[in-house]
C-alpha cells in the first residue's frame, strides 16, 4: 500500500563543509511504525535524523543533495518553509531540553507560536499531551512550577508532550534515553510503543537491545552509509551483510 509510506529518503548526500557525512542514503519510513537507526558513534545516524526535518539547515556550511520526501513532497523544495516541515516532523533530543518556563508554558509554547491562543483549548491540549506522554498524573498539581524541577526522565517526557502539542505526524527521537536511568528509559520505551499507534517514529539509538525491543524496522549505518535496512527481526536474527552481523555481535563500535 503506497499510502503507508510517510517519508522516503532517496540518494541523500550531506556535507559539513568538505566532509561528506552522508553518502547516498535511501530508505523508506512507513506510517505507524517505529524505525530505528543503529551504528557506531560518528556513523551519521544523528545527521540523517536531523536531515529528516531540516534541523541541519541551522548549521552553517551544511550542504545537501538528493531527496527527502514527506507525503510525496520534497521537504527540501526551495519554496517550502523549513519551519512548517518541523511543525509536521517533530524532534526529541538526546538530553532533555525543557525551556526555563513553567511546565504548562513549555507545552503551550508551540501551539502559541502557531497561532493557537484560546485558553480553554490550550488547557485541554496540556492535559491531553501530558496524558499521552504518561506524565499527567505526576505533574497535574504543579503545572505552574518550573519545568527544571522535574527529574531527567520526567523532563524528557515533558519534551515529548511538548513535541506532541504541535500535532506532528512524525516524531524523530535522537537517542532520547541516553541521558536517563534504566527506569526512566523503560518508561520512554513504553511511551514510544504507545505513540506508534498514532504517529510515525524514527529513533536513533546506541542501544541495540532498545532497537530490537521497540522497533519494527531497523537500519544499520556505518561511516555515512546505510549498510543494511529491513525488518528488525531479520536484521537482528539473520543479517545479510557481514558488517551488520559483526556490529550486532558486538565486535566493534
Amino acid at each position, binding site marked *: 500500500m503506497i499510502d503507508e509510506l510517510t517519508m522516503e529518503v532517496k540518494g541523500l548526500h550531506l556535507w559539513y563543509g568538505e566532509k561528506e557525512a552522508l553518502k547516498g542514503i535511501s530508505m523508506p519510513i512507513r506510517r505507524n511504525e517505529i524505525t530505528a537507526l543503529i551504528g557506531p558513534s560518528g556513523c551519521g545516524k544523528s545527521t540523517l535524523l536531523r536531515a529528516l526535518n531540516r534541523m541541519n539547515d541551522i548549521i552553517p556550511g551544511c550542504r545537501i543533495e538528493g531527496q527527502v520526501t*514527506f507525503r510525496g513532497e520534497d521537504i527540501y523544495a526551495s519554496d517550502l518553509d523549513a519551519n512548517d516541515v518541523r511543525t509536521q516532523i517533530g524532534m526529541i533530543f538526546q538530553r532533555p531540553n525543557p525551556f526555563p518556563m513553567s511546565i504548562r508554558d513549555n507545552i503551550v509554547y508551540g501551539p502559541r507560536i502557531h497561532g493557537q491562543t484560546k485558553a480553554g483549548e490550550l488547557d485541554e491540549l496540556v492535559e491531553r499531551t501530558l496524558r499521552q506522554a504518561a506524565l499527567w498524573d505526576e505533574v497535574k498539581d504543579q503545572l505552574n512550577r518550573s519545568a527544571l524541577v522535574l527529574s531527567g526522565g520526567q523532563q524528557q517526557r515533558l519534551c515529548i508532550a511538548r513535541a506532541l502539542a504541535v500535532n506532528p505526524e512524525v516524531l524523530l527521537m535522537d537517542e532520547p534515553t541516553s541521558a536517563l536511568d534504566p527506569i526512566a528509559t523503560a518508561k520512554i520505551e513504553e511511551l514510544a510503543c504507545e505513540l506508534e499507534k498514532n504517529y510515525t517514529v524514527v529513533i536513533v539509538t546506541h542501544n541495540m537491545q532498545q532497537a530490537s525491543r521497540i522497533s519494527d524496522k531497523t537500519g544499520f549505518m556505518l561511516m555515512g552509509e546505510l549498510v543494511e535496512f529491513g525488518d528488525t527481526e531479520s536484521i537482528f536474527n539473520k543479517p545479510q551483510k557481514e558488517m551488520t552481523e559483526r556490529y550486532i555481535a558486538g565486535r566493534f563500535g
Partner: protein
Amino acid sequence: MFATGQQALGKRRSADSDRIIGWVLAAVASLAVLTLVFIILFIAENSGKVIGEEGLWSFITGGIWRPYQSEYGASSLITGTLLVTAGAVLFAFPLGLGLAVYLSEMAPVKVRRFLKPAVELFAGIPSVVYGFLGLILLVPMLANLFSGQTTSGFCWLAGSMLLGVMALPEIVSVSDDALRSVPNTYREASLGLGATKWETVKKVIVPAAAPGIAAAAILGIGRAIGETMAVMMVTGNTALLPEPLWNIFATVRTLTATIAMEMPECVVGSTGYSALFLLALILMVIILFINLAARALVARSQRRFTGTPAGRFEIWYEKRTAQFMEVCGRHRLQLLRQALKTALVFVFLFFIVSLFAPFGEAVVLAAIVTAALGLLLTDGVRRLGRRRVQTAAHCGMAAIAVFVMLLLAVIIGYVVINGAPALSWSFLTEFPRAGGTAGGIYPAIVGTLELLAGTALIALPVGVLAGTYLAEYAGDGKISRLIRDAVDVLNGTPSVVFGLFGLAALVTWLGLGISLLAGCVTLALMVLPVIIRTTQEAVRQVPPELREASRALGATKAQTVFHVVLPAALSGIVTGAVLSLGRAAGETAPIMFTATVVIESKLGNSILDPVMALPYHLYYLASEGRADPSMMYGTALVLLIIVLGMFAVATAIRIRSERRSR
C-alpha cells in the same frame, strides 16, 4: 485520529519575515558603527584647524601649553597623562593581582561570594565622588605627611592613588577570570606532585594565566587613562613636566583634565577649541593601541588552553626566545634575569628615596634596601620552610583583601557619616540658594533622574537589539566583525570624549543647545557599548539546546529569539543594563558640556531645557570651595545612594537568577 493528515506543508511565509527581522536588527547594530564613525569624524574635523596652524608634530612635541597666548604644545599634557596612569597601575596592579589570587585560589566560597561584588562596588562609585574624597581627605593627608615635598598636597601621587583604586575592579575581575580559566588538571597535577598551594599558584597557575593577567593590567591602564573628574580634582593641573621626572609629589595635568577645564571657556570654532579636540584624538589613539595590545594578549591566553594555532608574530617571538636561550645558556640567562630584577628594584627605590634625600645618600640607601630585600627573599624564604611560606603567603593575600575592604568601608562610611546629618526633607525638596551654598538640591535630583530615564529610553532598545543581532544573527563575516570592533572601540572611549562629541555634534551642529535631550543622547551613546556587550554575553550563554528545541517545534528563528532566548537571557541583560545606567548616573564629564547648568531656580519644562545634575553639582560645590561642607557631603551621599542602589538591584537580580539556575 487527530495526529495524522493535517494541512499540507506551507509555502514560504515565515522565512521572509525572518529575513526582514534579521535586516532590521542588523540596521540597529550598525548604528554602533555609525556612532563611532561620527565620533571620529567630528573629532578629526574639529581638530583640523589647529593642525593646520601649528602642525601635528610641533603640537605633540611642543613643551608649552598656554592657549590664552596661542601656544599649543601638548607634550607636558601627554606626559602627565602617562605618568599618572603609570603610577596608578604600579599602585593597583600588585593589589589587584593579590586580590584576584586570593579570590580565585584561596578564598572560601562564602568569602568569595561576598568579596566579588564588594570589589565591583569600587567601579560603581562615581568618579566625582572619588575626586571629592581625594580633595578633602587624601590631599590634606599628603600635605601633612610629606610637608617637605609638597606644600599643597595636590600632586601626581594623589591622582595615581585615586585612579589606582578606580582601576582596581577591572584588574581584579580580568585577572580572576584568567586565573579561573586555568584548567583544574593543572592544579591537581601540581598538588599531586606534593607542591603546596602557594607553590602551585606561583609556579603553575599564575604563569599559565600570565597573558590574561597582563591583559588585566593593560585594561586597568585603559580605564585609568581616560578618567577625568577624579584626576582633575587632585593633581593640581599645572601644565609642566615634573622635576625630576619621577617626582611623584609634583603637580601634573592630564589630557582629560585639560579638555574638561578649558572647554567651558572656549569659543566654538576657535583655535583653542580645535586644540582640545586634537587632545581628544591623541587620547583615543593611545587608548586604541592599549586595547589592541590587551586584545592580542587575551586571545593568546585563550589559545593556550584551547590549542588553536598561534599567530605569525607569536611563532617568530617564540623561535627568537628559544634561539636566545640557546646562545646564552640556561644558567647565564637565569643570572641575567636576576640582575635585571635587582636593577629594577634598585632604580625604583632610588626614585622614591631621592625625593627625600640628596643624590649620594639616596644611592647608598637604595642599594642597602635592595640588598636586604634580596637576602630576605632568598635566604629568608629558605629558612622559613615551605609550610610557613605557604601560611605567610596565604596571610599576605588575605591581608590585601582586608585592606581593600577597609578602603571601601572608609570611602563609603566617610560619605555616609558626614552626609547623613545633612539629609533633611528641605535639603531634598528645596531649590539651592546663594549660589548653591545654602538651600537644597531638589532640581539636581530631578535632573539626574530625568537624565537616567532618558538615557535608558534611548540606550536600552538599541543596545538590546544590537546585542541580540551580534549574538544570534551576525556570522563571522567582515561586516559583523566591523560592528564588533566598533563596539570594542566605543567601549574604551573615555567619557570626556563623548562629552566633546555631544558638544560638537548635538549641542552645536544639530542645534539642540545645552539640554536634557543632548545630555541623554550623549550618555546613551556612552552606555550603548556596555549594554550591547552584556546583552551579547547573556544571549550567548543561553544553551543551544533551547534554540534547537524551539526550532524543532516549527518556530521561526525570530520567534525562537524573542520567545525563548531573550526571556532566558533576561536577568543577565537587566543586570548589565542596570549596572551601566548606574554608572551613567554618576558620570560628570559627558554632561558637563551638554546638559547641565550650575544653578536652576526653577525646573525646565521641555527636553530642550538644561538641567542640574548631582555629579556636576558636587563638582561645582567642591571646586568652588565656598560651600558649607555639609552641602557637599549631602550631595555626595544622595548621589551615592542612587548609584549604589542601582548596583544593589543589579546584584540582587544576578544572585537570584544564579540561585534559580542551580
